[in-house]
């Protein structure tokens, strides 16, 4: 493992120095709120497209058709960017210890939001869970969040 990590760190240091020369800091460029309301599901790169001066890769935050499924990298290390538009409760509707209701019922009527487990997921999870159980484990992988599963999977 050491043989992999040492060259990687040296490589990173060189690029980091280049980065230091090119741009300002990252979080130091962020207000707490986005200065303008971004209605609908914005494509951030429609405006943030000057790659030479932006400190973030806003492409990560483009709300494409499947952004509800694949925003993991965007949110994981840059939560303050999400919070410029979304209150924390918006994320907690899906990401929490237990949500009470599945997100599509909690926010019923909001058909535009690509929430997980929409429709008859009780049946479909038998197949999805067999094909890719890692996806289930990501949210239901702690004793309290798995309690709902345990009612049947004893």
């Amino acid at each position, binding site marked *: *493992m050491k043989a992999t990590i040492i060259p*990687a*760190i040296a*490589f*990173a240091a060189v*690029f*980091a120095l*280049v*980065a*230091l020369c*090119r741009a*300002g800091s*990252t*979080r130091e460029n*962020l*207000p707490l709120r986005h200065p303008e309301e971004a209605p609908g599901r914005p494509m951030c790169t429609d405006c943030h497209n000057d790659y030479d001066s932006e400190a973030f*890769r806003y*492409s*990560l935050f*483009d709300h*494409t*058709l*499947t952004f509800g499924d*694949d925003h993991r990298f965007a949110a*994981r*290390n840059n939560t303050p960017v999400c919070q410029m538009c979304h*209150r924390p409760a918006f*994320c*907690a509707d899906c*990401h*929490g*210890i*237990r*949500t*009470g*209701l599945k997100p599509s019922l909690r926010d*019923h*009527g*909001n*058909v*535009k939001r690509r929430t997980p487990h929409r*429709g*008859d997921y009780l*049946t*479909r999870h038998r*197949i*999805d869970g067999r094909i*890719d*159980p*890692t996806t*289930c*484990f990501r949210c*239901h992988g*702690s*004793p*309290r969040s*798995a*309690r709902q599963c*345990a009612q049947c999977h*004893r």
Partner: protein
Amino acid sequence: MLLAVPVFFACSLAASAADLSVTSDTLFQFLERDTPKGNDQQVAPIYDYLSVDYQDTENGGFSLHAYGWARADMAGSDYFSDDPDGELAYAYIQYAKPYSPWQIRLGRQHIFAGVTDDSVDGLSVVTGWRSLVSVSAFGGVPAAFDTDNGTNGDVLAGGRLAIGNEAVFLLGLSAQYLTDDSQEIDNKAGVDTTIALGNVGDIHGLSSYNYDSNRWQEHRYEAYVRMGPVVLKPLVHHFRYNDYFGERGQRDSVFGYLNGTDETLTLFGADGNWSPAGWVTMGLRYRRYAYRIRNDGANYYALLGRAVSDNDREIGFEAGRMDGATDETAYTLSRIYGHLPNPLGLDPKTVLTADFQWVRYDQPIFDQDHAYTGSMSAGRSFFHEMVLVKATGVYSRNPYYDQDVRMLITLRIVY
């Protein structure tokens, strides 16, 4: 926490004017279920989701954020007897200023940092130095674990060090230490990276190393490529079940059996988005699931689309096919939805929505080879959007329920 509350109020008094936002969503639900009392019993849970945000979003400083829910069954059924009647999702005090690298949180919070995606009752600190370094650290008691044996010996701690800048290249190193009742159950370290590809796009990745088993548990790499109206997102993920589910998987009865199967899952595919005009977007999805031991990989294909008008009217659809190696793991899915604000131009504060989803299973489940769910919803806001009333009727027919009717009503009040 006992100390944190008075400290917060002392600080907030000294702070400049902040906005207090309290939102209560009271949700009434009516349905029928088989319960320990008998079949087709009335179940009428009432939920309240309460969120509180007290923050000066312009100048920053100390702020308070809390969110949780509680439930009571008005019909007095035993349907929820195995399921706790509430949860505090988060409740923390934060210190953050605009255009500052510092963010400090104290209380229950969800941590996203490198390898960590978990809730903790504790402290987290994020800071950085120009574009060269950013650092986050957290520690406390894991909030998603049972406390039947108290919280002695329960620890969740870790952090992430990132070097570089996402605009060019970023390398993050992260680690997590997690014990439950003094047993180490989910200790891992990880390397995440972002490589910018000029104006074309970028590559992101995360590799997690389970240092209980001393093996890699997960590799996850994705790219983003934008070429005018086309966005492509290829991805490849790889999981080793023994190490991914690990000791943590043994803590519940659902995933424990996967640790010990020596199975691996390799997932690759891509999402494509094409937006020829601002109002319409079409998408394609492909996923390939391949295993080391099981000889029954699967493919998922989907076509998606949506059209949006200037006044926020929207229709969308998805048609997908999960093509497992056997009929048991194959289904066809389709969904269509519509979102109609200001119907017929009669009332701009009213929104109507409709949603229909149909699934066909290649192998019947409980003698049913299909399921469908339809819902219609109407909502209206009052008093400058301080009050919202929303009602949804859901009808579903599926292998588990011959005819399932569910009524949901939400009363939202923003104080």
